[in-house]
């Protein structure tokens, strides 16, 4: 590993990776562990990866693969119940904090796959096809998972319904 290049990349892109990992894992420490795992998977091949260009797609792919692996290993009963450690940011009003906590708790109640599809589609701004490629499933599965995830969020946090947009049926999204 070219430690200089690698470290530069981590310093430059680590925060973004951690944010994605936080949304996938729901916990700051788990997010750090997930990013470490993803980076450790690409580190041995860093020179080859960077020779091909931007390493970001490889790292992101490794991050999601690590998240899937972790969700497979964890038992279904295992739920991250911790509230966000940094729920209150400087200058936040009470409503902003409440919305943040509600969204976080609702995300934690989703399955790992549902969280993943929401992060890919609405946080990473990927298309259905790109999300399907990352998740290793079909486009229609991505669409249906998205509908189910949004529906569940609406049910879990009705006060944030505006945030989640208009309800769509499975038929509509798969058309």
């Amino acid at each position, binding site marked *: 590993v070219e430690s200089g290049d690698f470290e530069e990349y981590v310093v430059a892109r680590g925060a973004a990776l951690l*944010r994605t990992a*936080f949304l996938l894992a729901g916990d700051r420490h788990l997010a750090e562990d997930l990013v470490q795992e993803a980076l*450790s998977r690409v580190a041995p091949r860093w020179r080859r990866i960077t020779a091909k260009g931007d390493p970001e797609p490889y790292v992101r792919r490794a991050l999601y693969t690590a998240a899937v692996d972790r969700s497979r290993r964890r038992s279904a009963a295992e739920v991250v119940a911790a509230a966000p450690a940094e729920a209150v940011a400087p200058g936040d009003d009470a409503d902003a904090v409440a919305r943040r906590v509600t969204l976080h708790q609702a995300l934690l109640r989703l399955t790992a796959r549902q969280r993943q599809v929401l992060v890919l589609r609405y946080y990473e701004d990927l298309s259905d096809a790109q999300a399907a490629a990352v998740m290793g499933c079909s486009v229609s599965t991505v669409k249906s998972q998205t509908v189910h995830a949004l529906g569940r969020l609406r049910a879990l946090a009705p006060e944030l319904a505006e945030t989640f947009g208009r309800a769509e049926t499975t038929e509509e999204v798969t058309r």
Partner: protein
Amino acid sequence: MSPDLRDALDDLARGGVRDVDLHRLAARSRSRAHRRRQRRVTTVAGAVGAVLVLVALLAPGLTGVRRSLPADTGRTVDGHPERIGWQWPVRDLPDRPGPMAALVDTGHGWDAVRSDGHRWHIPMERKAVTWPTLSPDGRLLGYVQSDGRTYLVRDLVSGQRRLWPGLGAGISGPGLPPPTRWAVGGQAPSFFSPDGRHLAVNGFRGDVKDGETSGPLLLDVVRGGLVDLRAGGFLAGWLPDSSAVATVEQVTKELPNPDPRIVTGQTVLAAVRVHVVSTTGAELRTVTLRPSQRSWDPTGRLSQRSWALSPGGDRLLVVEEAAGAAFLRTFALADGREVREPISVLGLWTPCGVSWVSGAKVSVPVLQPGEPPSRQIVDLGSGEAQTATVVAPRLHAQCVEVLGAALAGSGKGGGLLGTSTAGWTWWWRELTLGLLAAGAVATLLTYRGVRRRRTRSDQPVDWSG
């Protein structure tokens, strides 16, 4: 897509992970990658090591090349083979293979067997079916060479050889050269003296029709030369001080002919005499065996391999085959009296001969229908029998002779199988190799599957939204 949701997720994520030391994150990631690589190297090294160990364990039996055992470098045999199995290839006996523990007649000739069961082919004559002989310590081997006209004694430790060109197998026939002056009896046993200086063989004059002269011949292993002891009977063994040999002579008598129309009467065993003859040919004493438990069975049969002198020279073991059963009978050499109850041994295969191990323990050949030949140790006191050596059925062996000194030592080469004769135990290498091959194929297929999944999941994705 909902911009509100994107903003909400971004807000949540930014609040969730603040003030992370990214340099530490990079260092820890590198460290984890290093540990992962170490684990992988260790796993691969362990797997390779396990395969190498398995190959090392299996290869000797498959290739016939075994690692040297301490017995190879020793001067005497120190144990006996528990299993004499299939081996490929079976090479000719080298000059200095070390002491041998056993001899086995495989149907393709005689093989010398090391204490761990490794076999070498003895390049001896096969037309007259003479038998090879081992010295009591397994160091000397005597046999008629493949030309059928020369007797050879080999020192298996030093590699030295001594030849007796005039002592052959007694083969004669049209188109063959005239027989040698002396010949070794085909089925009769030969005995090395305990000190290894002499070899006594049952011989006959090969150049005289009908074997006019037959009896023990004495070969001087150290200086060469051959002496006709001019004694009657077949050899039974040596006295412990190597000063004399014992021979056994069967005395028969013809029963009165009850029917005058029958010209030939019935010949039955009347007595058994033991002659003790010195190495100079002087008869030291003659003893007539006195069966005390019951007389010799008139219909019984004694062969030239039916007796063996104990290592102490004070007991003579006689195998009497009568009424479809074989009995072990023990006599004192001093006065000829029978000193133990006869013992019946199931499946005792009399043509292969018996021998002493130590004390009251003797070694007998056993061959039962449907079973491979084996060698059992029988306790003359208790009558208990214990299998010491078994031979693989696919060797088609008839006889296996194991030295008494070897049988007194520990069993070797049996591993976990011991002396089991179950069919699969003779194919354990093939079965293990088959399982290994199946495991390798399964591992390969699994590895390919994992690689394929990993490759798929490692492909970069176009991340431009």
